[in-house]
């Protein structure tokens, strides 16, 4: 869609340029052709009028001495010299033909129309010049010349072709120039769009665009940059607030939990004991939420650190399953395949990941359906799968669910939590140079993660490619 918009803007720019230049050229070419033709007509009219003047002078005596043979001879000479004269006539004072030389093509209708006028007239590719013959001041007759403008049609087509070719070249040049120039505009827009898209996809608000200039696109880019700055500032404030708030919340909660624990050891009677248990359980849940927030703050501020130890992986899985099972008795959790490996990792953090995945699986599974956990060692890695039988992850959100504060759409109403679990899981696994992903099966979703057995320090080149997925 972005690419389409971009192409369309480019085409718009090019079209605008080409259309404008074509319009200007069209006006100019029309003006040029009209002027040229008008000039040609004027020139021709002038030429023929001067010819008529000469003929008039030469035939004045013929008229006065009634020598129409001499007049005829004068006209014949004219025709011999000027082949484009189609018809010529010398008329006496009463506009009767005194002498005439006519060729095929002379138009008697035109002659009838213009014989009594004086001047130069154009009629459908024909020039008619009528001039008075006078002796001193007396008008003694007139000369009528009919000239076919053969050149006019030739000239017209020549001018038209010339204008077309020149316009074509100019429009092509305009197209090429605008095609080159528009990249200056469109490439910057495209770069902005690319950056915006990346920011949207990755949530990395540190990306900014460099642009020197003061035009509208530069303004757009600088506005975008300042928006990013605002977002970064807001993020920072939010993180700070979350950090401070969760820290401030945790201290009294620890006290509450401590007192509840004491109270529980003292109270044996029911229902008091049950109520205290319930309170203790909920205090634990609250503590877990606050710890998630603290973890996020740690991740954001880069304070998350791994405490690497070597431990039995299957044992860790079994322990985690056991404590998860305690919280949810009606959804059986099955540990099917075992890795049978010692793993070097942060035990507590990996447990946190497993607990999170299991708690999710429990949350999104239907009652009675088992949740299956498998751990397989392949090569240098252990691959763990937690398969539930729930609704699965909505298509297209397989990556987004690992984002911060992500809540699956539609299901978030009856399922509690901040939406931080998977975000923390991904960070922990990536810190171990492993990767975590989700796969939809026919009957549910599978969350998988891959962990290097030898620990993060030994898996440099392998994981660096995968963790970016």
């Amino acid at each position, binding site marked *: 869609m972005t690419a389409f918009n971009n192409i369309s803007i480019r085409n718009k720019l090019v079209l605008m340029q080409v259309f404008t230049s074509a319009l200007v050229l069209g006006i100019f070419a029309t003006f040029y052709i009209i002027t040229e033709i008008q000039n040609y007509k004027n020139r021709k009219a002038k030429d023929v009028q001067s010819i008529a003047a000469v003929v008039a002078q030469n035939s004045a*005596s013929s008229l*006065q*001495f009634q*020598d129409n043979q001499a007049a005829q001879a004068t006209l014949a000479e004219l025709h011999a010299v000027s082949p484009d004269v189609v018809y010529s006539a010398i008329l006496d004072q009463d506009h009767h033909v005194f002498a005439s030389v006519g060729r095929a093509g002379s138009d008697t209708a035109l002659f009838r129309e213009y014989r009594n006028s004086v001047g130069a007239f154009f009629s459908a590719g024909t020039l008619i010049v009528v001039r008075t013959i006078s002796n001193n001041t007396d008008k003694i007759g007139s000369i009528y010349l009919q000239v076919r403008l053969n050149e006019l049609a030739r000239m017209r087509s020549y001018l038209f072709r010339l204008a077309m070719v020149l316009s074509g070249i100019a429009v092509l040049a305009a197209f090429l120039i605008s095609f080159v120039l528009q990249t200056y505009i469109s490439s910057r827009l495209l770069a902005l769009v690319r950056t915006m898209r990346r920011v949207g996809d990755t949530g990395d608000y540190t990306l900014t665009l460099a642009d020197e200039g003061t035009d509208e696109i530069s303004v757009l880019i600088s506005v975008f940059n300042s928006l990013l700055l605002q977002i970064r500032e807001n993020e920072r404030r939010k993180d700070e607030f979350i950090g401070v708030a969760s820290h401030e919340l945790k201290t009294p909660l620890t006290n509450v939990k401590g007192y509840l624990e004491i109270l529980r050891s003292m109270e044996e009677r029911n229902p008091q004991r049950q109520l205290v248990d319930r309170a203790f359980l909920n205090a634990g849940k609250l503590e877990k939420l606050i710890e998630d927030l603290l973890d996020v703050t740690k991740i954001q501020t880069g304070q998350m650190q791994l405490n690497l130890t070597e431990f039995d992986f299957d044992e860790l899985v079994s322990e985690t399953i056991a404590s998860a099972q305690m919280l949810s008795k009606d959804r059986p959790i099955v540990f099917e395949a075992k890795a049978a490996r010692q793993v070097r990792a942060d035990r507590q953090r990996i447990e946190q990941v497993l607990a999170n995945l299991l708690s999710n699986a429990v949350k999104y599974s239907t009652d009675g359906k088992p949740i299956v956990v498998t751990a397989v060692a392949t090569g240098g890695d252990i691959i763990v799968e937690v398969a539930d039988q729930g609704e699965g992850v909505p298509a297209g959100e397989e990556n987004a669910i690992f984002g911060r504060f992500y809540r699956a759409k539609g299901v978030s109403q009856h399922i509690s939590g901040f939406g931080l679990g998977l975000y923390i899981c991904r960070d922990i696994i990536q810190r171990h140079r492993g990767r975590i992903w989700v796969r939809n099966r026919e009957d549910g979703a599978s969350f998988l993660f891959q962990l290097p057995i030898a620990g993060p320090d030994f898996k440099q080149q392998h994981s660096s490619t995968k963790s970016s997925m």
Partner: protein
Amino acid sequence: MKKLVAYAIIIVALLTGFGIPAAAQGEDLETNLKAAFLYNFTKYIDWQLGPDDAQFVIGVVGMSEVERALEQIARTSTVNGRRIVVRHIDRLEEIGGCQLLFIARDRRAGLREILSKVNRGEIAVAEENGAAREGAGFNFVLAGEKLKFEANMRALSSSGLKVSSQLLKLAIIVKK
């Protein structure tokens, strides 16, 4: 005034009344045409008129109706802005002082004598076959039904006057 306009129309019509064969219209038309031609000759000749010449004199030798037609033209027309005077000449001594001299048909017999009296600056016009050959500057002849004129180049050049080629191209040139 009305009369004058009517005359003018008649004369202009006569001067330029073309396409009508002269002979077909009889003696009257021929006479008028000759008078018109005589007047038209004056337009194609550089008369070298001095400031003293207040008038342009056309002499008519012998008896001819042309004289009457010329007088009519003289009433309304000028030559180079000068009044036209038509002078009747009976005796040879009276010949001098004319610019254009018309020798009527009845003086054919004494033609040579008359021509010998023509001075420089004067041009004689006759109306008889062979007159040009005998030394008249111009001579009216009938070619078929049309009135034409001969021009004697030697006579014209000895007059010392410049005759326009526009006029000469219409003339039948006689060399002698």
